[in-house]
């Protein structure tokens, strides 16, 4: 009896070791994290500040954030270009105001262009349309009156500010990833934190533009409700499209 057990024991332990699933060796191994972490250790980031990979949905969301923000800043850039083109000579007192806002938008636009290239995100397919539409919107409202141009700024910046806030909310809550060192501590990577900082800074700039627009009589634009609500709707549709296409 005892002899039998002694013979069988290696078999028993082998059976215990063997996992139930026959296909288990075919599955993608997740234990290779540490190996690849060791490979990348020469990149001077300690393992304590490395994170588990983002999920497909998280990567797709970041992709989308960069695409829509790039398209939005492109639009803002061209709206101010249109306003400037019409108003620079007509109303000299507004020239430095629009110039200042335009410069900020150009900075935003360049920042997102850099991010787009760095992260290999495709730009929105409709960029030619956004360019023409935004310039026409800026120039068109400016042709109605300087107040209408400011109402346009107010409507656009309201929607953009709200949209940036939505993104910040998602980035702050949905991107806590577990660390790689097995400490079960989760946090956000420097990269995501930097993106949040960038968006926060730009959101504040956009809301500053909103205040500027109100200060320069946006409420005195003549079909005020029609203008602002119409432009808000256009912006929302554009955001929805630029996120996807």
């Amino acid at each position, binding site marked *: 009896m005892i002899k039998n057990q002694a013979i069988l024991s290696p078999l028993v332990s082998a059976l215990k070791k063997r996992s139930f699933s026959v*296909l288990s*060796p*075919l599955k*993608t*191994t*997740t234990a*290779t*994290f540490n190996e*690849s*972490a060791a*490979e*990348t250790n020469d*990149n*001077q*980031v300690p393992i304590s*500040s*490395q*994170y*588990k*990979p*983002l999920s*497909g949905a998280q*990567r*797709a969301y*970041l*992709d989308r*954030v*960069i695409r829509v923000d*790039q398209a939005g800043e*492109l639009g803002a850039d061209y709206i101010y270009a249109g306003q400037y*083109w019409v108003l620079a000579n007509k109303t000299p007192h507004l020239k430095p105001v629009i110039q200042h806002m*335009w*410069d900020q938008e*150009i*900075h935003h636009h*360049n*920042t997102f*262009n*850099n991010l*787009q*290239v*760095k*992260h*290999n*995100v*495709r*730009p929105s*397919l409709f*960029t*030619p349309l956004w*360019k023409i539409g935004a310039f026409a919107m800026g120039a068109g409202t400016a042709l109605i009156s300087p107040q209408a141009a400011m109402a346009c700024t107010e409507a656009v910046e309201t929607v953009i500010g709200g949209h940036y806030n939505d993104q910040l909310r998602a980035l702050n809550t949905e991107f806590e*990833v577990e660390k*790689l060192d097995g400490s079960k501590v989760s946090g956000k*990577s*420097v*990269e*995501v934190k*930097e993106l949040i*900082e*960038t968006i926060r800074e730009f959101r504040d700039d956009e809301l500053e533009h909103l205040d500027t627009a109100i200060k320069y009589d946006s409420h005195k634009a003549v079909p005020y409700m029609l203008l602002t609500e119409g432009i808000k709707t256009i912006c929302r549709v554009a955001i929805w499209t630029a996120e996807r296409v």
Partner: protein
Amino acid sequence: MSQIKTNSIITNVFNCTAKLTSFKKISLIQNTHRFYHPNTTEYPKPHSYFPYLTYAPDSIQAKILSNCLQKHVPNTGINERSLINSCNDLGQSSTMLSVLSAPSNSAVLELIKFHLVTSRLELFHFASKNDKSLEEIFLKRLELNKPISNQLSALLSHLTSPFPSNLDVGIQELHNLSNDFVVLANDIKESHDFAWYSKRMGLSVAYVSSELFMAQDKSENFKETMEFAKRRLDNWRNYGTMYNNTEEFLWFQLMSGLSFVRSQTA
């Protein structure tokens, strides 16, 4: 007007982006992914085929497929017979074919996809050693087809036969390839608008036509294919330059015309 603007932008950007410099440190890292690709210092990739193939390079599937490509495809062709031979080589049962067919509905299609993905990975290693020009990378990719060159027309006809899964793999991988050309080559400027698409489209057309030429090429060491590919790349570059010059010319004419009208009406 726009000239003055761009100058002010540049100074503005350099003043305001103290933050971005820390971004740049991370941006030295490889950047080969279609999606937003988080840096590999903070997020390691599960395996080097991720996310294009579901299995890792050291998996049984990868071993069967690479063995099949090296030993059996040149003689037996791109079909299930060579896959079964490869399974037999490695002591696997032929039921492995059903495992292979899981990601893309067909084991043969998976074999093709494996060739396309691993070739792109090879390209990445090739370009990361030292900076390579577009032409070098482009020709390198064609050279990677040499081992299976006698099966190239079968491969292309398989990818273009009208089944959704074939087209999915073919078009997706073609886009990934042309995207890699742009990302890896050190002599192409990346664009931010519609040109992003036309650039890749043009490269895809150049690549597919070169590959079609290669499938018929009988010259020694594919010399004629390489010449053909170089011509196609030159064409692609010339069209781009032509378009940019035309656009610049028309824009200049428009601006000067408007200024003239203004000066006359003021």
